């Protein structure tokens, strides 16, 4: 990747480099030959041929399934699911096959499948192109899920996913696709949560665009705020959160999800189980309401979290 790449360009560079290194890397997805709506795969078919960059009809179940078959046959498929909402149509192949085959076979096979997808609201596109399903994916034993928040981490995540022997979902917040922001720890491990801001009074754990909003909020809030970018959504790793709580003893979880079934509920329960005695106040969990994502501008704006919401949650957890 080059220094000036945005997140999509960095992810494309990672895929391109992997395809050059390893002839087993294949790309499947809707309109991937022309580049897809976000230009993720732009130019790859010209460089690597349409046998390795393969357009599919609109049939997420079949082409994630085909990815599983390619993986079982020794390839390293990269499957582009245009929006994570469309994964619902492929959930049998992802949840029942990709995630479970290694276990159900007693370790006989592995499924080195990478699924790239994007999530998030803010475009007035309504509930079928805007939800965040992080919490869903995190509840399936056998899936690994990465959520990079910067171009360099996107490069590292795609590279790591394509080298991994297990199925990995790389879930990117749509709001970050064309961002060029760098964060501390960009040269670190994409599989581990990273501290992107040090503070003493309260720990904020975030994913996706909310990592950037949390950093903005930290500048505005009175207390000294530590911000952790979760990065690895599944399997959850709460060790770095517990280590941070040893110092701050207060926790705010901010995730762009409907409140029901949210990833933050999983983080919250894991922290309560293992870190209850580290806490000086109840954990604050900040999510969107338990509704589908609405389409109208006024409604969607009200649905989405803002930096001010994070500031308010930080102040509240200090008072609690």
């Amino acid at each position, binding site marked *: 990747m080059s220094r000036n790449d945005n997140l999509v360009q960095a992810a494309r560079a990672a895929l391109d480099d992997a395809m050059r290194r390893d002839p087993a890397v294949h790309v499947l997805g809707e309109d991937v030959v022309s580049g897809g709506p976000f230009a993720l795969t732009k130019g790859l078919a010209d460089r690597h041929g349409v046998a390795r960059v393969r357009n599919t009809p609109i049939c997420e179940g*079949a082409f994630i399934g085909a990815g599983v*078959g390619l993986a*079982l*046959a020794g390839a390293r498929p990269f499957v582009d699911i245009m929006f994570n909402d469309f994964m619902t149509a492929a959930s049998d*192949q992802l949840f*029942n096959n990709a995630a479970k085959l290694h*276990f159900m076979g*007693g370790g006989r096979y592995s499924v080195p499948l990478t699924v790239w997808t994007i999530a998030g609201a803010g475009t007035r596109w309504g509930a079928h192109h805007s939800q965040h399903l992080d919490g869903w994916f995190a509840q399936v034993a056998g899936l690994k899920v990465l959520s990079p928040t910067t171009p360099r981490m996107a490069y590292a995540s795609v590279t790591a996913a394509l080298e991994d022997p*297990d199925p990995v979902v790389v879930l990117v917040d749509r709001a970050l696709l064309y961002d060029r922001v760098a964060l501390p720890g960009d040269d670190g491990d994409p599989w581990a949560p990273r501290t992107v801001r040090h503070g003493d009074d309260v720990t904020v754990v975030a994913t996706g665009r909310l990592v950037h909003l949390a950093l903005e909020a930290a500048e505005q809030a009175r207390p000294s705020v530590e911000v952790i970018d979760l990065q690895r959504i599944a399997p959850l790793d709460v060790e770095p959160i517990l280590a941070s709580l040893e110092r701050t003893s207060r926790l705010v979880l901010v995730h762009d999800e409907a409140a029901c079934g949210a990833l933050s509920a999983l983080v919250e329960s894991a922290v309560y189980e293992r870190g209850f005695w580290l806490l000086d106040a109840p954990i604050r969990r900040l999510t969107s309401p338990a509704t589908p994502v609405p389409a109208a501008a006024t409604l969607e704006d009200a649905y989405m979290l803002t930096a001010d919401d994070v500031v308010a949650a930080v102040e509240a957890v200090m008072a609690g």
Partner: protein
Amino acid sequence: MTAPDVTTAGGRLDLDAAHAQMSRVRAFEEAVAEGHRDGSLPGLLHLSMGAEAVAVGLMSVLDLERDRVYSSHRPHGHFLAAGVDPRAVMAELAGRETGLCRGRGGTMHLMSEPVVMATGIVGGTLPIAVGHALRQPPGAVVVAIFGDGAVQTGIFHESLNLAALWKVPVLFVCENNGWAEFSSREEHTTVGGVVRYGDLYGIPAAEVDGADVAAVAEAAAELLAPVRDGAGPALLECHIARLRPHYEGDWREHRAEGDPLVAVEQALVARGVAAEALAERRQADVHEARALLASVLADEPAADPRHDRDLVFARSPR
């Protein structure tokens, strides 16, 4: 005993050897049914009794070194006919650490190449077979076996469409027993025959009496020749009888006509083989399968839950 061969498009099929294989598959599943009845074998068991000629006929025309097979939720016969160790299969059904999948899969999730996998989700293996076929070496094929219940799923049509579009070397084989779970085919679809989907997707298709092992071998070999040559997928509908209920232990009365073992025995007798010799073989196979089950139950170690966490991932994250 003499070994009367029949000539098919796939070469010569040794009918006697086919009977021997079918008899072993049948005896294995009879022992499994007994084990289920007496409580020694757990699990949701979907037996393949009535489909033995499909399994044996198909495998007889495959190159099991290179060809790969995807199975259904009635998988025992496919695995046994492909030469997978019966003891490992029985140990898997019994939940033993020495089972084919260390007890983590069970009856519907057997895995062992050349039969890559079975599935508990009707139709679930079809797109995987298509993807696998993309990477088969020239001349090698993938066979995807499914029941007629799968034909009403969306994934069946998605998979046929992809396979036809991409011209992948897949032979889709429908074991049409006329029943989808507890309902007849007529209750689930207005489409007359599964074979008709061949026309729709522009791929060669044929239907055959699935109780006739030679006919299955013949039809499969004919359809496979162009598939191996790179012409794209094909579809074979095998009409069979489901001789057992949907699953072992179902409370409904279930009857069906058309036993493939009776059919192959009649064919052999017509060629001069002594009926007594065939009956003796059946008896010996039943005895052996019961002994196998007893030995597995007595000697194979129970699956050990201490290993479960290490089996979730091929590379466990920190």
